[in-house]
């Protein structure tokens, strides 16, 4: 009786598809940027938009979520940045170029690309939080004329912890764009600002009305930065944070990222501050 | 698909559950509502008891060490070799150069075989097990006071108590389903008094919380007795009719006023008086204790002092009273009961008693050794001295459980031959010459005895992964040494019952439904929930005066902290099983040291900072947890992490009577890194 049922052949969402590591860059002392290229037919990974993430799968170590850290190149490559914090990322760091990893995705919601057209945009990033924002930044610079003034604030613990150093310099060359960097622990070579990202907020020359803000970084940074941004007059609905949560499935089933009815993996990871308030969270 | 009802392999409460077996894989655990101990409740370890059983790390083949490295060999090769070496050492050095460490994790039947193997086959009384490291003090202490060294009452009386004095025990974390009954008692209005250097969970709902220094319990209890006598709160009728030695006790406690005890214990005199008053004037009151009382150089005396307190107030020898020694392991009560001890056969019958020996010699068909054997503690010392040549260890990880790890390693390395039965490759197994892969609780038939003296069935859910159970292995080695033993667990139980008067009514058939609490002196006896009813096993309860003696190592200028060790809810002893369960490991993945905020500030450390804990035995780098749960000048560490072994720090000082180590107090210092 049971076998007579026409079971729809559903794609097994939990089955990873393979990708090859094309290049590995040592970004900072504890972080690497991996360039990946999907090799399995039927992989939907490249359909991703800025803001989304995927699950990386390593047999023997399980899976972990990583946001796409770049726009996809024309020949089907993209980057993720990985900070070594636990057993999974340790194993990922031990891989070499030409090694294979499993991928599932893309998952999550995208940044509101159409809403930000012709608007001024402020990006605030802390540490490796620059990685999820990078595809959006790249998208905005790729379509420079369609957006207003761009200000980027990026803070790290020390100069050696700054990601994408060369690319950041190139961002400065864009018209009507300012890039501000700050560190907590300067070294001898550093002659820039010191302190948390909020110390740079007074420096921005951006009109808050109708402008958009995108934040990503440690929870405490998001919490405090949003408080300061609100004081400057940015609208709650225009402030977006890319949130981090422990995830195991990425598709809204395992429950780890659930917050008051919303799943950070399917309803997020990007939430406006008004949505965050409804969820009762500040980071 | 089948559901197999069995007893939990972790702590001494003795919960039951069904193992859910589908296609030869154990996929989950179903609580057993019909079981009188657990009644459908389980703790987090029990809910995951299926996970370590079929873990990929399980040892599947015997390992023989060649040139310092292990080689997988066949069962025959391994067993032939073990038998040959054992015989060789016995012939060359005599039977007392061999020793057996039985297993408080294995079944009663297997422990019976282990002690029979030591005595009848190897010819020595050198058999002991890890009760030595935990409740040997209970056995030696209560034996003197009452004539029987086990729990006096049953779990189901706890919810109806008016007062529960919890001292040196953390039921919520170490015995969760007894902790449930304590919670129910509180919900029913019971007054709980918690005495612990750490502010454990029950203290949050307690009527009174006393935070004494580790190792000052006799002073505390003597002060309570002193106050009770002064206020005339003692049970004169009970003392008159059912005890002896009261005058000596009265004399001995006269020096211990609450005010004088306050200095020693660090507890306000008013608190001591309040505790005494509540306990003495409650109608139904009991004392629950565990390793906080036994793991001291004065462990035996600690227990005796509690027995004194119970007798002085008449809170023993009747329903809704008594002492609850919370036994640590699933079958440590059973291993003691089965005589896996150097001085007794099964049923606590002395090996030095000629009549008893004759009975066993006749049943076993062989001459038996006459002198009591070595305790586990002294086996280690004798190994270092070179007097002990061979150690046969079953299911025990001494290198991680015994105090002063470096000394234990030296002891085991001095042996000529070391055999270890294990299910995972532990640190002790790594030192062995031969490792024999044993079976977990889910792979054997037998019985466990829990802390309320209840025999319960253990049932096989899957076939032994290595092909043999620990009982099978002993029998095969014994066979090769020329001695045949009964292999069927129910028949072993029958043999044991026929030779041990206090269990003579125990059989698989009789315990099938709900187990049986010993003493079960006859085939139709229903078991004994409350012992010492009417009269103590020794007749009259004996008051034995005891005096405070500080721990063997007290803090000084160089080592200003008292280091105490203990357990977490999520892990079990050396973590061999629980660190292989994802949910359990995730809660507490690493070792840590709890330190009082004032002390932390003085050193200049914050939570999660790495610190070095140093004692005269060794040092260990762990992360600090700053919490006001611990008293000032006291630090506390769990010992569940094999790669961060706490016992490198603990002191190899032992109670002179029961030879239990002082895990709960030694001197330490903390260095900032």
């Amino acid at each position, binding site marked *: 009786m049971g076998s007579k049922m026409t079971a729809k052949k559903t794609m097994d969402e939990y089955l990873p598809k393979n990708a090859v590591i094309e290049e590995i860059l040592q970004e900072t002392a504890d972080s690497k940027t991996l360039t990946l290229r999907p090799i399995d037919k039927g992989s939907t990974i490249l359909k991703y938009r800025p803001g989304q993430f995927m699950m990386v799968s390593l047999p023997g170590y399980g899976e972990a979520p990583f946001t796409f850290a770049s726009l996809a190149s024309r020949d089907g490559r993209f980057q993720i940045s990985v900070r070594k914090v636990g057993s999974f990322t340790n194993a990922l760091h031990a891989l070499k170029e030409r090694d294979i990893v499993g991928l599932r995705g893309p998952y999550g919601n995208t940044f509101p690309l159409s809403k930000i057209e012709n608007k001024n945009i402020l990006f605030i990033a802390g540490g490796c939080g620059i990685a999820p924002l990078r595809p959006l930044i790249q998208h905005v610079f790729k379509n420079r004329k369609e957006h207003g003034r761009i200000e980027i604030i990026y803070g790290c613990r020390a100069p050696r912890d700054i990601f994408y150093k060369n690319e950041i310099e190139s961002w400065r060359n864009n018209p009507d764009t300012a890039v501000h960097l700050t560190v907590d622990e300067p070294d001898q070579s550093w002659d820039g600002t010191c302190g948390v990202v909020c110390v740079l907020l007074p420096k921005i020359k951006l009109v808050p009305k109708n402008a958009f803000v995108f934040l990503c970084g440690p929870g405490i940074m998001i919490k405090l930065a949003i408080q300061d941004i609100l004081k400057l007059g940015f609208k709650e609905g225009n402030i977006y944070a890319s949130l981090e949560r422990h995830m195991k499935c990425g598709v809204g089933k395992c429950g780890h990222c659930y917050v008051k009815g919303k799943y950070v993996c399917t309803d997020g990871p990007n939430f406006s501050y008004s949505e965050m308030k409804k969820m009762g969270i500040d980071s | 698909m089948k559901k197999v009802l069995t007893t939990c392999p972790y702590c001494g409460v003795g919960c039951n559950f069904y193992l859910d077996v589908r296609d030869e894989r154990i996929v989950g655990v179903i609580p*057993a509502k019909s079981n009188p101990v657990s009644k459908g409740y389980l703790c987090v370890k029990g809910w995951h008891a299926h996970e370590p059983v079929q873990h990929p790390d399980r040892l599947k083949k015997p390992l023989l060490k060649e040139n310092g490295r292990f080689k997988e060999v066949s069962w025959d090769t391994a067993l032939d070799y073990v038998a040959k070496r054992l015989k060789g050492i016995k012939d060359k050095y005599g039977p007392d150069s061999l020793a057996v460490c039985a297993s408080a994790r294995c079944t009663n039947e297997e422990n019976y075989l282990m002690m029979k193997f030591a005595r009848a086959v190897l010819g020595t009384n050198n058999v002991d097990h890890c009760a030595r490291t935990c409740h040997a003090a209970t056995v030696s202490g209560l034996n003197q006071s009452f004539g029987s060294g086990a729990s006096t009452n049953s779990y189901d009386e706890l919810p109806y108590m008016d007062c529960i004095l919890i001292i040196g025990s953390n039921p919520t974390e170490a015995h969760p389903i007894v902790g449930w009954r304590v919670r129910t008692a509180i919900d029913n209005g019971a007054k709980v008094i918690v005495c612990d250097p750490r502010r454990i969970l029950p203290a949050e709902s307690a009527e009174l919380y006393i935070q004494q220094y580790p190792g000052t319990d006799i002073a505390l209890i003597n002060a309570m007795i002193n106050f009770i006598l002064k206020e005339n709160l003692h049970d004169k009728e009970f003392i008159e009719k059912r005890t002896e030695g009261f005058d000596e006790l009265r004399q001995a406690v006269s020096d211990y006023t609450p005010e004088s005890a306050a200095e020693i214990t660090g507890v306000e005199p008013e608190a001591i008086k309040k505790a005494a008053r509540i306990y003495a004037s409650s109608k139904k009151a009991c004392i629950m204790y565990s390793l906080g009382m036994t793991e001291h150089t004065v462990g035996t005396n600690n227990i005796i002092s509690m027995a004194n307190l119970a007798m002085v107030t008449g809170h023993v020898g009747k329903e809704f009273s008594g002492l609850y020694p919370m036994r640590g392991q699933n079958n440590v009560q059973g291993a003691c009961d089965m005589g896996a001890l150097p001085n007794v056969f099964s049923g606590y019958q002395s090996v030095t008693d000629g009549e008893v020996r004759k009975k066993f010699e006749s049943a076993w068909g062989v001459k038996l050794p006459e002198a009591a054997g070595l305790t586990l503690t002294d086996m280690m010392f004798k190994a270092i001295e070179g007097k002990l040549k061979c150690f046969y260890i079953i299911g025990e990880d001494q290198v991680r459980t015994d105090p002063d790890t470096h000394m234990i390693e030296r002891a085991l390395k001095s042996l000529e031959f070391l055999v270890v039965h294990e299910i995972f490759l532990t640190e002790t197994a790594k030192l062995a010459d031969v490792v024999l892969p044993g079976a977990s609780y889910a792979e054997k038939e037998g019985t466990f005895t829990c802390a309320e003296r209840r025999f319960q069935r253990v049932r096989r859910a899957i076939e032994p992964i290595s092909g043999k159970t620990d009982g099978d292995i002993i029998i095969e080695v014994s066979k090769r040494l020329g001695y045949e033993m009964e292999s069927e667990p129910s028949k072993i139980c029958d043999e044991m019952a026929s030779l041990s008067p206090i269990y003579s009514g125990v059989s698989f058939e009789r315990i099938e439904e709900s187990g049986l609490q010993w003493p079960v002196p006859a085939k139709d006896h229903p078991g004994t929930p409350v012992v010492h009813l009417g009269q103590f096993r020794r007749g009259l309860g004996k008051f034995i005066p005891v005096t405070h003696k500080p721990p063997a190592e007290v803090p000084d200028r160089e080592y200003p902290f008292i280091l105490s060790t203990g357990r977490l809810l999520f892990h079990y002893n050396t973590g061999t099983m629980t660190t292989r369960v994802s949910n359990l490991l995730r809660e507490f993945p690493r070792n840590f040291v709890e330190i009082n905020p004032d002390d932390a500030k003085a050193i200049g450390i914050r939570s999660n900072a790495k610190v070095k804990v140093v004692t005269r035995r060794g040092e260990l780098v762990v992360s600090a947890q700053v919490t006001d749960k611990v008293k000032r000048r006291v630090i506390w560490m769990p010992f569940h992490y094999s790669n961060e072994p706490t016992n490198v720090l603990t002191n190899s000082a032992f109670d002179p009577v029961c030879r239990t180590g002082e895990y709960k107090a030694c001197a330490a210092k903390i260095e900032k890194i």
Partner: protein
Amino acid sequence: MNKLFITHEDLKTFVEALKKTCDEFIGPSRQHLNDIAFGDVKNDGEILLNYDGNTILSPRTFLLPQTETLFEIKGSIGGKVSSIEDKKSRIFYGVRPCDTLALSLMRRFFLEGIVDRPYQDKMENATFITLACAKPCSERSFCREIGSGPVAKKGFDIQLVAINRGYLVESGSKKGGAILRKYKKLFIVSTPSDIKESKRILKDFAKEAKPINYKRLAGIMRDDLVKESVWDDIGLRCVICSGCITVCPTCSCFSVTDRMNGTSGVRVRYCDGCPYAGFTRMAGGAMPKPDHKDHIRRFFEHKLNVDVERYGVPSCVGCGRCIETCPGNISIRKFIDDAMASVKK
């Protein structure tokens, strides 16, 4: 609606016939003493056609087992990962109305949005025969009050209501209707007195039950009006045994891990959930809500607040299993009363 009827004898025949049509026939079977648990009774001669009380665990234990292998892994880096499929056809007999409601909610949860393939495989090949309750299964259950029993309104393929001379039978789905048509020789039309009898039994059952206004409860929780002392007490009692999340018919959280034996192994999913601190702890140690009472609070919010919004009904079906397994004596029933009573000023 014309309800059908089947005698006790014919029900035996029906069950025997059904057993031949499936891989596993999951029915209530007596374990030790009074314990009843679901098991494969396909090859059992006598099975429990009617029983008092409820099974220790709900059918969740077959649709979302405590541990379940999802994939086979061969090789480490670049290794091959292949799905392990469980497409066994199962007929579940004797499912109680509370568990039946739970199944319909879980079906929606796992199959809406991105489909959970392992759950779908099992669900598609499962048939549910519900057995309504003639009397309360235990003191702790409250299906009448929360509206999930004693008769199921949906989620079943076939429902049986026991009366004296047999059972009333109704179909709840196309699949159920097809089965009843296939074996129509065993069923007759019920009489008006049959219907009267069943109505009386159910009325007796629900006699003293005061319905819980769960929409009001959800509103109270949504507006965070429950007194903090209620949450503090629950946080103190909860010892993270994980019993509630393992026995609850509507708990669905899990975690995934790889179990390797050398270079081959399996990817396993296993029961996980709110009470654990590690459930939301991120690599690096950060935890969104570090207090333990907020972890166990999530269980209550999910069942009684958020799911009312999502499904229209709470996902607590009043089976009482969590109450009967909590060593901290936490009762979700008592919580509901406390929450409704103690509204913050």
